[in-house]
């Protein structure tokens, strides 16, 4: 035993003892933000990647025409210093920053945007977010191969620093779309130096090759270990930027991330282990943040299923769920019960739907649908991807449906890709789902359930719903538009192809030394406003 102890002590001393200053304290002095970023990004090509960790990195490296404000809300100038919108809301004229530069010193011009959008819409690139530009005239046709001439797409260059964009309809959220990384510019010469316009595997995103126009430059990238970005002195608004470096750590294990935060290796965490959330709330952990988030957790119902095709059955299922109990006793991390599909308050939109918790009414609806005494309701299956939190929720719903409706429920968990595949081909009855808004507008939710949308997956088609959303897209007046969307959402909740359960929150830990990091609905934190200062 003695020897073991000696051996262990020697190992510790040989390897250089303990660090004296934690990375967080060291970072405070040098303005280096140690950022817990969830998982290894797929890449940093804004036209190819999808996902939140990628967004966190890209927002420091590149910039679109508009940029999100530190507290959300209205879009602020980005690569464009200002813009005009035509009377009918369909023509946008953008005026680029005169001192806008790429990180290699080249000027950022209108042509850069034209070329970048052409790249995003080039079919053979296989960009997954190309539909972000479908509001632009001719963009959808070009992307779907109906025209090969990019001049048919509604972008017109006026001069080096001015260009016009023609939209199909007045789209009030268009400026918000431009804060999404898929619409950001890439440096033509750099991309073409390392591959063709549609090359997904080009090496232009590597450190040393990468050129973009954001407040930070790519310094190094150690795969699965960390990505370091450093302040870009050529950025047009460089005076505002206070951080010198951001180090992104792809910590996919939430427990490891939590330990790293506690040990002073990270300034923030991407999320928190769900089982720790109530503990931290109870302990009044001052680093715990629970912010509103534009996302809804819901159950999809397969309306092609012989049992679930009856809206009365779907409503009975929805009315027999106690959402308040679900968020207070099961999820326990500040989530809000959802009584609409769109999170309330997104871009000023307030849904006026309600979903009562009324087991009596639910049983009555079920009886009307032919499942009363003597006619037993067949077994129902809830599909979810393997995850302890989804299981807990499914267990609670199973119990509520069994208790309130006497329905027998089977829980089926599947590996992520199998679950996605079964949802896609409609091989399910009830399936757990979540949706996070891509931009701050109710359309990002309501568009999902229009017929023929790939993400509908419920088989539900309602032409009136589709017409109302289509009509809302042509209206410029915001309150009139919201009225139309509210009408559509009422149809949705009345037909209930999906059962909203709760509105997401963003729960994470943030060191009190981090300033300029404000809660906002899209969880978009522009690093140019962030700095470190001892609390």
């Amino acid at each position, binding site marked *: 035993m003695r020897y073991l102890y000696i051996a262990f002590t020697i190992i510790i001393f040989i390897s250089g003892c303990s660090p004296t200053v934690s990375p967080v304290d060291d970072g405070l002095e040098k303005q280096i933000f140690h950022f817990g970023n969830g998982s290894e990004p797929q890449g940093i090509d804004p036209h190819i990647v999808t996902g939140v960790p990628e967004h966190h990195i890209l927002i420091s490296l590149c910039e679109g025409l508009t940029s999100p404000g530190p507290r959300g809300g209205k879009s602020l100038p980005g690569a464009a210093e200002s813009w005009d919108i035509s009377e009918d809301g369909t023509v946008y004229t953008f005026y680029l920053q005169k001192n806008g530069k790429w990180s290699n010193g080249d000027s950022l011009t209108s042509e850069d945007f034209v070329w970048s959008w052409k790249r995003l819409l080039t079919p053979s690139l296989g960009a*997954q977010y190309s539909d972000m530009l479908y509001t632009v005239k001719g963009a959808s046709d070009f992307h779907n191969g109906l025209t090969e001439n990019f001049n048919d797409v509604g972008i017109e260059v006026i001069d080096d620093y001015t260009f016009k964009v023609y939209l199909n309809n007045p789209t009030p959220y268009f400026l918000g779309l431009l804060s999404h990384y898929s619409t950001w510019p890439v440096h033509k010469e750099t991309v073409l130096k390392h591959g063709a316009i549609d090359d997904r595997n080009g090496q232009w995103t590597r450190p040393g090759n990468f050129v973009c126009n954001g407040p930070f430059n790519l310094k190094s990238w150690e795969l699965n270990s960390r990505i370091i970005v450093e302040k870009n002195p050529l950025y047009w608004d460089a005076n505002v930027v206070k951080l010198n470096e951001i180090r992104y750590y792809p910590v996919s294990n939430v427990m490891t991330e939590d330990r790293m935060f506690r040990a002073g290796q990270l300034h923030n965490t991407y999320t928190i282990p769900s089982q720790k959330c109530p503990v931290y709330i109870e302990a009044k952990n001052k680093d715990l943040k629970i912010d509103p988030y534009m996302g809804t957790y819901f159950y999809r119902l397969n309306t092609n299923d012989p049992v679930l095709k009856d809206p009365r059955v779907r409503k009975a299922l929805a009315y027999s769920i106690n959402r308040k109990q679900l968020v207070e006793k099961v999820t326990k991390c500040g989530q809000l019960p959802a009584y609409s599909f769109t999170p309330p308050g997104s871009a000023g939109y307030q849904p006026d739907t309600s979903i009562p918790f009324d087991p009596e009414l639910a049983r009555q609806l079920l009886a009307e649908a032919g499942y009363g005494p003597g006619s037993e309701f067949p077994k129902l299956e809830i599909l979810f991807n393997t995850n302890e939190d989804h299981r807990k929720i499914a267990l609670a719903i199973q119990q509520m449906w069994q208790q309130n409706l006497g329905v027998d429920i089977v829980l089926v968990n599947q590996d992520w890709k199998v679950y996605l595949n079964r949802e*896609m081909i409609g091989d399910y009855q009830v399936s757990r789902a979540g949706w996070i808004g891509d931009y701050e507008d109710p359309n990002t939710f309501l568009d999902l359930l229009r017929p023929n949308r790939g993400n509908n997956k419920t088989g539900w088609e309602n032409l009136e719903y589709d017409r109302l959303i289509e009509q809302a897209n042509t209206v410029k007046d915001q309150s009139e538009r919201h009225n139309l969307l509210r009408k559509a959402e009422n149809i949705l909740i009345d037909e209930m192809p999906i059962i909203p359960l709760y509105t997401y929150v963003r729960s994470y830990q943030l060191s009190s030394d981090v300033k300029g990091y404000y809660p906002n609905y899209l969880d978009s934190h522009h690093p140019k406003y962030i700095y470190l200062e001892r609390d």
Partner: protein
Amino acid sequence: MLRVFISRMLMAIPVLLAVATMTFFLIKLAPGGPFDAEKAVSPQVLKNLNAAYNLDASEWEQYTDYMSGILKGDFGPSFKYPGRSVTEMIGVGLPITFELAFYAILIALVIGVFSGVLAALNRNTLLDFIPMAIAMIGICVPTFLMGPLLVLIFGIQLEWLPVAGWGQLAGDKILPSVTLGFAYAAYIARLSRGGMLEVLNQDFIRTARAKGLTEPMVVIKHAMQGGLIPVVSFLGPAVAGLLAGSFVVETIFQIPGLGRFYVEAALNRDYTMILGTTIFFSAMIVFFNLLSDLAALWLNPRSRDV
């Protein structure tokens, strides 16, 4: 020995070919594809993506393309990480996993052999029971418990060592190496105790002692050579197991090794990455088994000249 070596090397070729072929067709059978995501991809985009990665060709065509690529040392591009080739990713992860495995096996050997020999020499005394009890704990406690436990004590409570990372902060390699090494140390301790006990009762040990050799000489020069053969035989599969099974420790300690790529590739349906890492790990297992067999042959004088 040379004959053994050559015949085993020749046997490895059909083994690896079978592994590659079976993996290739098995992953295609698994439901879900590399481009399935919560935000569904439109049919048009999916078509473009399949074309970009040659997934629209027939299975046979894809197979022959892939196999001819391997012969040229090209494992193809990763589907999950555009712009990265599988060869590059293995190249990045492998040295780290190797380093981790090296430290772990070193710790395992030092602790394992030492306590095993100590226990064998002091059979049925406290010096036997205590190390063997610890070894039993080491075998029973999984790394996913041992790792966080060590982190909690040495990282968070005592603040002596970093809790995660690899080569970024001073001392960040200690806890993962100890965690991974400890589990193997336990096996090695039991094996070396067993091996030593068997050898210590043999006639040639008695002869050595009768000749008046000192006890350390008897143990180190004569007993250990035979007594540690089980440990050497165990080392081959252990090193291969360490390489392929370092996933848990790599995840707990945020180490950018190959183990994480391997498991995540399967979850992501990153076809080329699954194939690349599977073939690579198979080759490693074949190679280290061969190496340990050769070492055991060499250590055993009766089979040395075969």
